[in-house]
């Protein structure tokens, strides 16, 4: 008995050590990518330039390029990547299904369709448009959840209901796009792909605050999520308020997702991929959501570096994540289908 307890605690300590290592190295990677994203561009800046800007000692040209363009862009990428990653991982863990990310279960479509409506019909932009997209995402999430509830809650049913709602919203969205004029289409479709080009300090502040609140709120819920994996009855026996914690997680995840989406558009597949990558890195559940956030940041920052500098033309970041993420997603699907453990 003692021995098994010892073995258990050794294993626990090892997995804890591993998780800390992974989180620290991901954080360093994110910082490096952040740095690269800031110094590279039409003109190359050095570390001292960046420090000068932060200490507001730099000449106005550099201050503008770094302080107003690159720094907000990179910080937005970091924050939104983390938000996408954490929101996606929360959904995947809540629904016991690596494929149940917000892009599949209709929530992203809700935010998108609301945004298209805002651009094409109402002609709004900027923060108004963002708020509108947030409302769209939240409403869709509520509708999907309500429609799923039928003699209890079944995660699989939620996936199917979400797919249908997403298809319907897509149809409505493309109907509005047909009637739009050329200029609106361009801004709508750029918005739909996800782009960091419009980042400014307002968005940095909003997304960073959301990230801080999200982290504080998700951490205590993360443990309950793990217990929910054992089944509702077991979790209830362990003292988890099943309905309450599920609702809390959904609300936090949808808020994180919608706010990130409203800032940069739905950067494809980040919320989808961050969770599974994080789980493969740390091998244990306990800190998966925070790790997913860091993975998300690295994905968005790395993709932005590629989008801006890999080829002669600059692409929106969403193009890069979808070209990379799409095939990865199918491979991921291949493995989880074969194992069937999570389906």
């Amino acid at each position, binding site marked *: 008995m003692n021995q098994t307890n010892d073995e258990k605690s050794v294993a626990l300590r090892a997995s804890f050590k591993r998780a800390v290592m992974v989180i620290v190295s991901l954080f360093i990677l994110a910082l490096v990518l952040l740095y690269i994203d800031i110094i590279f561009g039409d003109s190359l800046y050095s570390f001292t330039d960046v420090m000068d800007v932060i200490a507001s000692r730099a000449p106005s040209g550099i201050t503008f390029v770094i302080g107003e363009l690159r720094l907000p862009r990179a910080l937005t990428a970091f924050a939104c990547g983390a938000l996408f990653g954490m929101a996606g991982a929360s959904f995947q863990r809540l629904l016991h299904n690596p494929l149940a990310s917000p892009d599949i279960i209709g929530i992203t479509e809700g935010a998108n369709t609301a945004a298209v409506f805002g651009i094409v019909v109402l002609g709004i932009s900027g923060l108004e448009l963002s708020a509108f997209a947030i409302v769209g995402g939240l409403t869709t999430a509520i509708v999907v959840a309500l429609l799923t509830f039928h003699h209890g809650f079944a995660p699989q049913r939620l996936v*199917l209901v979400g797919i249908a709602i997403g*298809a319907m919203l897509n149809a409505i969205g493309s109907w509005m796009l047909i009637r739009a004029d050329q200029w609106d289409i361009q801004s709508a*479709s750029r918005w739909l792909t996800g782009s960091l080009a419009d980042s400014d300090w307002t968005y940095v502040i909003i997304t960073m605050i959301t990230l801080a609140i999200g982290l504080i709120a998700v951490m205590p819920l993360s443990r309950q999520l793990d217990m929910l994996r054992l089944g509702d009855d077991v979790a209830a026996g362990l003292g988890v308020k099943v309905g309450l914690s599920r609702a809390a997680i959904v609300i936090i995840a949808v808020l994180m997702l919608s706010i990130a989406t409203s800032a940069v558009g739905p950067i494809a597949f980040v919320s989808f991929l961050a969770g599974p990558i994080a789980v493969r890195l740390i091998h244990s559940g306990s800190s998966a959501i925070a790790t997913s956030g860091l993975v998300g940041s690295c994905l968005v920052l790395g993709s932005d570096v590629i989008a801006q500098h890999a080829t002669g033309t600059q692409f929106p970041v969403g193009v890069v994540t979808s070209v990379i993420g799409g095939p990865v*997603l199918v491979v991921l699907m291949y493995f989880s289908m*074969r194992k069937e453990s999570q389906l």
Partner: protein
Amino acid sequence: MLFLCLGCVTLVILSLVSVAIGSRTIPLNEVFHAFSDPADSSVSAAAARLRVPRTILGILAGVALAVAGTLMQGMTRNPLADPSILGLNSGAAFAIVVSMAFFGLNTPKQFIWVALIGSAIAALAVWLLGSMGPSGATILKLTLAGAVVTAMLSSLTSAILLPRIQVISTYRFWQVGGLSGARFALMVPVLPMLIGGLTLALLTIPGINALAMGDELAEGLGSRVKFTRGVAWIAAVLLSAGTTSLAGPIGFVGLVVPHAARLLVGSDYRHILAASAVLGPILLLAADIIGRVLTRPSDVEVGIVTAIIGAPFFIILARGRMLRQV
């Protein structure tokens, strides 16, 4: 039998309505006059004649999609199967965008083949992904595989489209699924594909009836399970790709119609297929007419109307009994 006759009568009435109604409503006697007297050159007659190809395309597309849906539901024993859910439409769309952007194709005739290749590959990918693992192709796995392949293809599609404004403006009209571009000259080359698909569909019915009892029992009864599935899959791809290349992706017709047919005529696929072939065009024409009346004088494309009608139906199915078997 009675039901089939009633269905055919409804279909004829709807076809007449479809010719008569639009941004300009034409009284039925003028419609008859337009066709009985070729010399009639009034505006009404011209409008009625213009709506004929549209109506015929609606009938063709309705039959093809409903039969394709019936085949897919039968062979996968999956009540949620449908050419749009299982990724065929997004495969065709992706292939067409690639051909527009990189190979400079732009005539509808070229799109026929491109759409066929695209949806065949997507269909194969979805089937392979969804049938992975020991429990085979379950409802949830196939539906998810369809959703994942669709997600991947549509984000690649928008990645290709984004830097190309010119292609976006051509593509967005194709993408919603509409009958308004119907012309006989375009339908003719697709006809062999649709007829081939329908013939194969008829040939696979005994096999699909056997499949309904489960793979093992069907094999025990001497049915060649894999062969049936292969042929049915080819037929479904031919039918839905043919329709998609003409009318764009029209979702949910293949999902809704077989269920309605099953409610009306029972579980024998001979009857279901016949009933679907009548109900499909009824649904499609009705959706097209609704789309024309709703926002007069402009149209709501039929693909949008079917999605808005079909998605709630899908949700009702997903909430129902069948999900216990996932």
